[in-house]
C-alpha cells in the first residue's frame, strides 16, 4: 500500500529548551521532541535547521532519559552556524535515530577504555552516561580525553565536579595539546594517556571517537598495546545525508556508515580504503 507509508525524509518537530555554550565554538542544545524519540547510545540523528538544511549528530545525552535529547555541536559550516544562532523556544527538526550504536551487551564485565578527542567527546558522553546507568555491569571505566587547550575541554564542569567523584571504578585521564598558566594537568597528545594503562587487555574493550587523525593514531596505539581489532570500536564521522542507506554519501568500503555504523569494530573496517581521511 502506498498510503500509510512512513516517510523517512520527514523531520519531526523538536523544541529547543536550552542552549549551553561549552567552548568558544561549541554549544550544547537541549531538545524536546514532540513525540517520544528513543535512541541507543552511539546512534545518530539528522537535525534540521528550518529552511537551512540538516546534518548528522550523535546525541550527547543519556539514552535513558526519554523526554529530552541533547546534542553538542561545533560551529563549522552553514548549518551549524545557523544552529548556533538559535534560541530556546525556537524549533528544529529531527529524523532518526539511525544506524547502529555501541553494542553495550558486549561490554558487560569488561574493562572499558574510552578514548576521546575534541568534540568527539559528545557521543562518548552519551556512552559514558549509559555505562554509568548500569555501572555494576562493568569491571571499570578508564576515560581518556584530549583537547587542544584547557579552554577547549568539553563538559569541563561535569567532568571535574561530577564525573570524577562518581565511583572508584572510574578514572579519568585528561590532557591538552597545549597548556596555559592555570593548567596543572597533563600536556601531550591523547595517545600519551594510553602509555601506562593498568588494564587487563584481553578482557578490555576500547572505544575511540574524535577527529580522523586522532582516531588513527589512537587506534594504532591500542593495537601496539596488544588490543585485537575486534576489541576496538570506532565511531566514524562521514557525510551522512539521507541516514537510510540510499544517498551514497557516507560510503566506507562496502559499508554505508549511516546504516552499518556509525559505530564499527576496527576489525570490520580496517581494510577499507580512505578510512582515516
Amino acid at each position, binding site marked *: *500500500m*502506498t*498510503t*500509510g*507509508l*512512513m*516517510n*523517512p*525524509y*520527514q*523531520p*519531526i*518537530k523538536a523544541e529547543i529548551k536550552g542552549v549551553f555554550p561549552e567552548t568558544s565554538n561549541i554549544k550544547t542544545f537541549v531538545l524536546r521532541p*514532540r*513525540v*517520544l*524519540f*528513543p535512541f541507543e547510545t552511539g546512534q545518530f540523528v539528522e537535525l*534540521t535547521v*528550518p*529552511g*537551512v*538544511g*540538516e*546534518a548528522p549528530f550523535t546525541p550527547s545525552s543519556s539514552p535513558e532519559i526519554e523526554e529530552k535529547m541533547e546534542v553538542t555541536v*561545533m560551529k*563549522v*559550516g552553514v*548549518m*551549524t552556524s545557523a544552529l548556533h544562532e538559535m534560541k530556546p523556544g525556537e*524549533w528544529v*527538526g529531527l529524523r532518526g535515530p539511525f544506524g547502529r550504536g555501541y553494542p553495550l551487551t558486549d561490554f558487560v564485565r569488561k574493562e572499558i577504555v574510552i578514548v576521546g578527542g575534541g568534540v568527539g567527546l559528545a557521543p562518548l558522553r552519551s556512552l559514558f552516561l549509559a555505562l554509568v546507568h548500569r555501572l555494576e555491569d562493568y569491571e571499570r571505566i578508564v576515560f581518556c580525553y584530549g583537547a587542544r587547550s584547557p579552554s577547549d575541554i568539553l563538559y569541563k564542569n561535569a567532568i571535574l565536579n561530577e564525573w570524577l567523584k562518581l565511583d572508584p571504578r572510574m578514572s579519568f585521564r585528561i590532557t591538552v595539546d597545549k597548556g596555559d598558566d592555570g593548567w596543572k594537568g597533563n600536556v601531550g597528545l591523547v595517545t600519551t594517556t594510553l602509555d601506562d594503562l593498568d588494564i587487563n587487555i584481553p578482557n578490555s574493550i576500547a572505544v575511540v571517537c574524535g*577527529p*580522523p587523525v586522532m582516531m588513527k593514531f589512537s587506534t594504532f596505539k591500542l593495537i601496539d598495546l596488544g588490543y585485537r581489532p575486534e576489541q576496538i570500536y570506532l565511531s566514524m*564521522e*562521514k*557525510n551522512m*545525508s*539521507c541516514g*537510510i*542507506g*540510499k*544517498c*551514497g*554519501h*557516507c*560510503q*566506507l*568500503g*562496502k559499508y554505508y556508515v549511516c*546504516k552499518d555504523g556509525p559505530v564499527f569494530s576496527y576489525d570490520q573496517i580496517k581494510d577499507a*580504503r*580512505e578510512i582515516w*581521511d
Partner: protein
Amino acid sequence: MVSEANVLVIDDEQTVCDSCERILSEKGYAVRTSLDGEEGLKHIEKEPFDLVIVDLRMPGTDGIGVLRRARERRPETVVIVITGYASVASAVEVMKLGAADYLPKPFTPDELSSAAAKSLERRIGPAVVEEEELIGEKLTVLIEPAEFRKMLMELGRYVYIPWRSANGLRYSVAGSAPPGEEVIWGGIRPVDPLKSFFFEPRSRVAVYPSWRPEVLSPADLADLQRVIAGVKRCDLQALNLLDKIFLEGDFIDPVYKAARENTLVVTADCSGPTSSCSCVLMGLDPFCEEGFDLNVSEVSDGLVIEAGSRRGKQAIEAYHAKAWTKEVETFHLEEREERRRQVREAIVQMNGDFLPEEPYEALVQEGSDSPLWEKCAEACVGCAACTQVCPTCHCFFLYDQPERESKVKGRYERIRAWDSCQYAAFARVAGGANPRKSREARFRHRYIHKLVDMKEAHGVYGCTGCGRCIDVCMGRIDMREVIWELSGVEV
C-alpha cells in the same frame, strides 16, 4: 461528499470526545462518540462509519485492538489513531496496521479537521495496485502493432513510448508524438536512463514543519497511472537493482515506491547494437525473460506480447476478450528465439576484444593500486555525466527551501536531487575532511562501487552495459577499455 461522512470518535476521556465532536460537527460531519473500545466496536459492527478516530491508550480494548478489528470487519473504514503518548515506534505500528493517520495530542481543531479531510480524501484517491506476483504460467499472444498501441493507450493515463529523435530513441508521452509515426520497438535503449521516471532528477520528498511522523501527502503520489514502454534489458536490470536499494532494508523510499507501483513496465527486445552496447559483458542478454509487466518482441507477423506479471496478464486477457490478440504459433516463438540469438551474437562479436578472463571484482580489487587510475583521472574532466546517465547511479543530496505552493510562511519543502560521487565535495564533511580529495580517488571509487561493492551487496554488478557513460564521456573514457587494461592488456 466529505460533509456527509459518518464519524465515530472513541476515547476514554469525555473531554476529548466532546471536543472532537464539536470540531467535526462544525465541519458538517455526522459525529458519534464512545468512551470504550468494545462499545465502539459494537457501533462499527452495527453500522458502517466512513471514519473512526480512536485513542491509542484506553483501558480494556485499546486503539490497536479497535484498529485491528475495525480493519478486519470493515476494511473500507478509514481509521485515525490519536494519542497522548506519541512515539515513532507506535506510529509505525499503527500505520502498518492500516491506520490512515496518526495524530499526537494535543492537536488544534485545524489539525484534526485537516487530518480527517485528508484521510477521507485519500480513501477515494487512485486505486492502490497490489503487490506484484509472478504468474505461474506464461501468457503469450500475437498482436498487430497498431492494435498494441491502442491497447497501451488504454492501460494508463500517461503512456510513454519510444520515439525516434535526432539523438536516438526518447521516451515520449504517446499523445505528443506526430500522428501516424510508428512506434519503434526495436533499436537500442532510449537516450534517457529509465531511472529518471522513478528517481527523478529532482523531487519533493517532504514538507515541514510537521510535528508528527508524516505519511506522504497524496498530492505527491497522484497522477502516476503510467505506462513506460520500450524498456530494454539493460535498463530493466538497472530498475531491478534500484528496487533493492529503494524498497528493501529498514527504510522504504515512499516516493520511489509510489512511482513504481503506479507504473506498468513494458519491455522490448533489443535489435541493437551500437558500439557502446555491452550488456553481454555484464552477463546479460539483450532481451528480458522476467521482471516486466509486458514484453514486446517483433516478428514478421506482428508483435509477440508476453505477460510477466499479474497486471500484465490481466491486460492481455482484457484485450484478448476484445479479439485484438491472436494465438501465438510455435514458429513465431522460434522466430523470436532466432532474432534474439542473432542480436546477442552481434553484441558478443562487437565486444569480443573486451572479455577479460577474470571476474571484474577480482580485477578491480587487485588493480586498486594500479597507475591506470591516475592515467584515467587525467582524461576525466570530472563532469559527472557518466553518473547522470547511468541507469543504476542513485546518489542524491537533500536540500530545503521555502515551500512554493502554499502561501504559508515558515513552511519548507525538502528536495531530493541527483548527486554524483564524481563531484569533489561529495564525501566531504563539514569539518573539512574529505576521503576522496583527488579525482583519481573519485574515478576509482566509481569502478570499485559498481564492480565490487554492488556485486557483494546485491549479487549483481552496478553496471548493466547500457553504454551511455561511454557515449557521453568528454574524456573519451570507455569503461570496457579500463577493465581491459586492468587485466593487463595495452590499449
